[in-house]
């Protein structure tokens, strides 16, 4: 059953409806679209026990102001934003009850640039090519192929079967770094790298790039030292990956994002691993970034750990979690494998940093587990 849930009072800067994306039509040139930060998107739906593909609002920079037309349940994830219901600040990363007549509003994000607003049952809007995602350039999908505007009314679709679930929060939130720090993006290099000289590749690892303000849902442009080609920037046109780092003739890399063209004729140096695409999307313009290569196995392990975090939240929400889990720095540890194990925050190990060691005793089913967590400041 569909219900009216929100009316838009103020649309925000760029608010669109997105589901996980439009798959199955890239062979005829239709871009995937979908969330720029798939991690936060999936957590938002999971917190409401929604199927992962339910349509949510994606806000960029400034979120919208909405009036609730019915009682509903929402979850907001993504950027560290101040969100309010009737002028009272609400928590992100957990389910929030909204009553008919309530006004939901946002202030500009403090960290990150994109928020997701999931609603119980998902936003209901007609499917275009099997998806509810908005493709702005093509003017189709979502709300008539455009950003939301004042007066738009949103619907949700309540399926009575999945209303019972455990309301829990996702306290880890998003792993933001300080805006002044450089964000490290891990990439898988591809073979077509023989299009670039060794010096050029070395330059990519050694240099700091800045995300250009000329960035959008199609691509994030990076400003920094030119990556030179051995023999021109053109290749035979081929399919484009989400997160691919394309290097056109001018040597300035472009990371291909959610609304990327399906195919392209420029050289690519590799692809950013999926969990880091979310970080890049949230970093936004003027943020500094560094790029470092990872092996395929490393990439698959990181991806599988991220996936476990989402699945573990899903089983807690569904009340099916039978184990105690320790979640730290987006990694999910099974307590049964943790006896006397030390979790070290290796990503942030730096010289001159102070070690902050905390000891925990976790008792479960008559067993005692010793847990040391070391963090570096």
């Amino acid at each position: 059953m569909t219900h009216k849930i929100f009316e838009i009072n103020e649309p925000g800067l760029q608010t669109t409806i997105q589901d996980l994306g439009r798959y199955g039509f890239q062979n005829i040139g239709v871009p995937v679209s979908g969330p720029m930060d798939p991690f936060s998107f999936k957590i938002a739906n999971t917190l409401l026990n929604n199927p992962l593909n339910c349509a949510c609002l994606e806000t960029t920079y400034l979120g919208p102001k909405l009036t609730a037309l019915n009682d509903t349940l929402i979850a907001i994830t993504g950027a560290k934003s101040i969100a309010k219901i009737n002028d009272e600040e609400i928590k992100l990363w957990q389910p929030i009850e909204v009553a008919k007549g309530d006004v939901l509003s946002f202030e500009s994000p403090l960290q990150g640039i994109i928020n997701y607003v999931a609603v119980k049952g998902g936003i209901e809007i007609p499917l275009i090519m099997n998806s509810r995602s908005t493709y702005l350039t093509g003017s189709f999908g979502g709300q008539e192929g455009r950003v939301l505007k004042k007066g738009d009314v949103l619907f949700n679709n309540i399926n009575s079967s999945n209303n019972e679930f455990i309301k829990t929060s996702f306290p880890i939130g998003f792993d933001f770094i300080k805006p002044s720090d450089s964000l490290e993006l891990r990439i898988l290099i591809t073979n077509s790298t023989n299009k670039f000289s060794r010096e050029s590749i070395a330059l990519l690892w050694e240099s700091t790039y800045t995300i250009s303000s000329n960035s959008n849902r199609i691509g994030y442009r990076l400003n920094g030292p030119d990556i030179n080609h051995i023999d021109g920037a053109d290749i035979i046109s081929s399919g484009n990956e989400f997160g691919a780092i394309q290097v056109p003739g001018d040597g300035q890399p472009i990371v291909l994002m959610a609304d990327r063209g399906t195919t392209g004729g420029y050289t690519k140096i590799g692809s950013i691993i999926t969990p880091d695409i979310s970080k890049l999307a949230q970093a936004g313009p003027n943020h500094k970034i560094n790029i470092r290569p990872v092996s395929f196995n490393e990439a698959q392990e990181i991806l599988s750990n991220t996936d476990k975090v989402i699945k573990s939240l899903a089983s807690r929400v569904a009340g099916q979690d039978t184990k105690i889990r320790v979640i730290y720095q987006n990694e999910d540890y099974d307590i049964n494998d943790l006896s006397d194990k030390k979790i070290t925050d290796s990503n942030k190990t730096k010289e001159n940093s102070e070690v902050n060691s905390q000891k925990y005793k976790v008792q479960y089913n008559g067993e005692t587990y010793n847990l040391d967590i070391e963090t570096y400041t």
Partner: protein
Amino acid sequence: MNEEQPIIESTGDCFVSVRFRNEINAQINNKVHNLFKLLSDNSNIGILDLIPSYNSILIQYNPTELSIENLIRLIEQNLSALETTETKQTVIEIPVLYGDKYGEDLDFVAEHNNLKPHQVIEIHCSPEYLVYMLGFTPGFPYLGGMDESISTPRLTTPRTLIPAGSVGIADKQTGIYPSESPGGWRLIGKTPLTLFNHEQNPPSLIMPGDLIRFVPIKSINEYETLLNLVKTNKFTPNKNIKNDA
């Protein structure tokens, strides 16, 4: 060994590319489309999407449902089945009104190649063009097979708006704009057909691997009649199946 093996490569944590010999030709492209058909089988759980192009196919998959080892095994099995796959191609007729305001650059293309405009039309209408791939914008066909005697360089300053259905030439290529967009191609004509409509199923009239043939429309009246039929969904383009067993 005469036939070299295609390169199977992970190009991302959720992407694998299968690349045949690094050139643009119809035989290689045919392998891409046949492999696409085999891999699009619905029983291949874990494959999210497939992007066929000139000489390669990009596979997006979900590694939690389909391991890289199993995906590579699946690709290799299908590659060995390629040789016995029957190729069926659809030939689609695209009616085009050439010249005047429908193709403002027809005279320029003729002059540039020392031809009369009617000769450009004849040459443009004679081959069957292979749709190597769709990309750039939804439904945009990359066509091969244009006679080089009508090749013409692009405009130095692209037009800011080209109407949907425009047929143009850029160097040795010809193409059709499926939707309104800016562009630098020399426009020689316009088709009343809708190439891409997101509300239709299938949304694209032309599919990768199809053949297309341009058929000249004789008068503005005929163009308008066709356009009305298209708009009221009463027009079915001529499609013939060609077997290249």
